[in-house]
């Protein structure tokens, strides 16, 4: 039955079924907010995956004020929340800003409303990665993630030389940091042969089961 207009509280009768009552429960709010959390909006998606309600954000900008990458982003963390509220999917998901977030959690630590922008951004990135392999991500960052995950799948651990090599191959930026390799070798910081763990089949299984990563790992 659709709720009557203008009434904030949930109109289903709320039978007192369920667990025994404890004192703390008296403050339990039985009203259900009419914010969409089941539909197909971005906000609903975020809410389903994370339990966070993007409508809580009141656009104070405290997240962006502390974000180390805000200066380089088109959409700062508070913009991300706003675009979710407005359901501007295309605009938000195709941009590169999401991929510039370092997950430093500064925004999350300071958000007065516990909106957890870092987690929200993670959720969106994951969504994009699954949908299109992170097409909107800056080329270098995308290449890095791909190489990284491929490495793990292949050997169970990161073999940094291989990682760097793979990454350079993907990005074609063969010469940046080129001087670094000899220095690293000299300092014993680069192993030339990869370590492979024994339980590689386990690792593959993990990747396969966590399906979204699969496509990336298969890519050459």
């Amino acid at each position, binding site marked *: 039955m659709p709720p009557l207009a203008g009434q904030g509280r949930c109109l289903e009768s709320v039978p007192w079924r369920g667990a025994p009552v404890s004192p703390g429960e008296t403050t339990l709010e039985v009203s259900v907010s009419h914010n969409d959390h089941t539909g197909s909006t971005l906000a609903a998606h975020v809410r389903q995956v994370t339990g966070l309600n993007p409508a809580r954000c009141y656009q104070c900008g405290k997240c962006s004020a502390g974000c180390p990458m805000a200066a380089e982003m088109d959409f700062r963390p508070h913009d991300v929340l706003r675009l979710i509220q407005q359901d501007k999917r295309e605009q938000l998901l195709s941009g590169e800003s999401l991929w510039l977030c*370092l*997950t430093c959690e500064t925004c999350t*630590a300071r958000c007065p409303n516990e909106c957890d922008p870092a987690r929200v951004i993670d959720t969106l990135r994951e969504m994009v990665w699954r949908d299109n392999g992170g097409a909107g991500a800056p080329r270098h960052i995308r290449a890095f993630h791909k190489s990284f995950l491929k490495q793990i799948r292949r050997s169970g651990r990161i073999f940094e030389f291989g990682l760097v090599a793979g990454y350079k191959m993907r990005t074609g930026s063969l010469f940046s940091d080129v001087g670094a390799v000899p220095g690293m070798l000299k*300092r014993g910081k680069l192993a030339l042969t990869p370590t492979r763990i024994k339980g590689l089949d*386990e690792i593959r299984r993990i990747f396969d089961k966590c399906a979204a990563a699969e496509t990336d790992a298969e890519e050459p």
Partner: protein
Amino acid sequence: MKLGYFPGCSLHATAREFDESLRAMAPRLDLELDEVEDWACCGATSAHNTNHLLSVSLPARTLAISEAQGHESLLAPCAACYSRLAYARHALEADPSLCDPVKDAIGREPPTTVQVLSIVRLLADLAPRIREKVATALDGVQIACYYGCLLARPAELNDVGSVEAPTAMEDVVKAVGATPVVWNQRLECCGGGFSLSRKASVVRLSRSIVEDARAAGAAALVVACPMCHLNLDFRQKAIARRSGERADMPVFFLTQLVGLALGMSATELGLGRHYVSTADFVARLSGQEGAAESASEEIKEVG
């Protein structure tokens, strides 16, 4: 005390000195490190940014093995690994609906008991023992303790004190006689995993960290994260080029600093593997004529 040990990928490569110094120091503090058998990479930022389940499952496997090995606590010196492992433990506890998919992915029972421990927490807890065993007190040496992002945040995973004003690293630094400087950038991010993929950002962010530490009068930075180390040490030349300063702010892993105070040698501590030379710092420390040279000799040899 016996601890499970998860070195993580970096400690086998770019942050070898972190591993070396920790292993060398352990017996002196009566620690026994029992490496997790056949551990795998924690997935780091790449898994985390792209696939939530993967980012929990990879560490969950390692934790499950550790638990099977009988570890009550698992030490993860790398801040990034710590963060991922601690997150996986937390997520599995906080969100029971994750348990089944994770169990399915790793083909083992998800971990339920093992506690993940950061190196900062461990050393802060051992501060009294460290204080007792100090051989070369770092009296009066000004140190900038750098936490970066992953040690203090998010609040649920923080084991170093309060989110905005942690003290654990300072406690360790005080235990070896040094003076932690009061500075502003200790909780700001250095650019983390963008070291390879977005160098300009890293240089911008790390620069303000190095400069602030210098302005506060620090003789050295101390870190507990291979990424921080890479960005502040390896990238310091690039930073210096921008700011017109010299790349002369040594960056130590916390274990190295404690090791120095315990009287361990530069070789034991892998001091020669740094990009910014540690020789001057070590020489000043021993404060003896000739010691400086032998210290720098030692360091050069490794180099």
